[in-house]
């Protein structure tokens, strides 16, 4: 479904990705783990077109997207929940969700999805007209995921959804991720610090170091890998 082929991405003069190749099949949950600064977020931003790669190719459902603008990429069905949630603080919860569906014109479909996410996270229905910035961290994360779902994505990119959340909430978020994947057959690309949790929900995993992929394997096998255990699982 998504093929990232040897992309190299730069921030100004600093090379963040030094040839990254990743493949994601339809319906899969894959995870990308690695230390802070390894290039995980950059990978997602390259896919979304915010920081386009300087070389290499990204193909989504047979279409080359590495030269497309972010809005065109969203239109094709790739949605991202960025690191730190990035709720529009001055927009109400409803407006935040509306922005998620910015490119869609099918009113009925939007309504349907709205009902779906409000059902998924009932707390958001309660806070409908509250400004996004006043929500608690967990609520913001739920809103961020809902907002991305409002674009009706085929591929959902999640960047550190557990960051800074209470252990209790982290568990719920991961449950929801699994649920979305199973109920809607949405493909999920998960970037995580919390390798423990990530490898539990993912089918396959990639390990990234210094802008390069160093390991690819089945999630279970990765979790059992001695090096991974030592470096990322803290065991």
């Amino acid at each position: 479904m998504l093929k990232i082929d040897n992309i190299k991405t730069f921030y100004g003069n600093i090379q963040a990705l030094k040839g990254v190749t990743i493949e994601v099949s339809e319906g899969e949950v894959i995870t990308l783990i690695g230390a802070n600064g390894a290039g995980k977020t950059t990978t997602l931003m390259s896919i979304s077109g915010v920081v386009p790669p300087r070389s290499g190719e990204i193909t989504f459902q047979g279409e080359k997207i590495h030269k497309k603008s972010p809005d065109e990429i969203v239109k094709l069905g790739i949605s991202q929940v960025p690191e730190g949630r990035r709720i529009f603080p001055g927009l109400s919860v409803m407006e935040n969700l509306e922005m998620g569906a910015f490119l869609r014109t099918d009113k009925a479909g939007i309504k349907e999805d709205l009902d779906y996410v409000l059902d998924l996270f009932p707390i958001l229905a309660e806070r409908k007209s509250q400004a996004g910035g006043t929500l608690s961290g967990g609520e913001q994360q739920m809103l961020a995921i809902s907002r991305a779902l409002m674009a009706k994505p085929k591929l959902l990119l999640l960047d550190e959804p557990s960051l800074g959340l209470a252990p209790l909430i982290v568990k719920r978020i991961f449950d929801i991720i699994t649920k979305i994947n199973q109920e809607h057959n949405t493909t999920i690309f998960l970037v995580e610090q919390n390798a423990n949790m990530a490898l539990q929900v993912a089918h396959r995993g990639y390990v990234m170091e210094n802008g390069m992929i160093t390991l690819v394997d089945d999630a279970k096998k990765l979790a059992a890998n001695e090096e991974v255990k030592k470096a990322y699982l803290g065991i």
Partner: protein
Amino acid sequence: MEYFFELFLGGLTRGSIYALIALGYTMVYGIIELINFAHGEIYMIGAFTALIVASLLTMAGMDGMAVLALSMVVAIIYAGAYGLTIEKIAYKPLRQAPRLSPLISAIGMSIFLQNYVLLAQTSDFLPFPSLVPEFSFMEPYEHIFSSSELMIVVVTAVSMLVLTYLIKFTKMGKAMRASAQDRTMAMLAGINVNRIISTTFIIGSTLAAVGGVLIASHIGQINFYIGFIAGIKAFTAAVLGGIGSIPGAVLGSLVLGWTESFATGYVSSDYEDVFAFTLLVLILIFRPAGILGKTKTQKV
């Protein structure tokens, strides 16, 4: 009392004039946090374009509302085009740059445009025809409040309402606010941020052109420098009201207009601008976000 009332009306007109320009400032600032110094120049270019069109039409034998309407339309088109072009040349390449850079670029653009018009046209003041017809129902009051003053006040009020609606309730407006709050996230939500910013510039420039035509027609003359002074004042007004806020821009403009009017009337016009700037300094010291602006709590 009558004197007070007259000064009040004078301040209202003057404030409305500032407001038409301040609205554009505040919109642009709201979205990219840039003091668009060249905004005043757009206002001036709008007025010049209208003058040229109006003169050609008058020479061709047209008159009345048709001249006003046509020259207004052309001025709006051109002001929008200039706004768009300026944004593309002077600001867009600087999106990632430190905040000082676009500000300096804006000052440069303002100087450039002034001198462009100076060289392409003239340094002299040019008489601007009175395009706003005298409404018959205003006849008995013309000496207190003229048709063109009424027109300015009404257009300002309507512009404010339309803009507020646009920003609060339309999808476009929400996208503008979203882009202002978090540009990267707006991109990730599928909003074409560049297009939104361009649109904002065009809307702001359009308003400046409307202002340019009405004000020039009210005052009766223009030259290449009118944009700078009006621009500084309008910006002061926008900051006063709380930059980024549409009603704030109008309120700030009216406050500034009245301050200047009453200061002139009851104290002295010698220090008119001193009063205006002192007011600005005081407001910023005691209420840094302006009258209607929200104080941003800095995240730590």
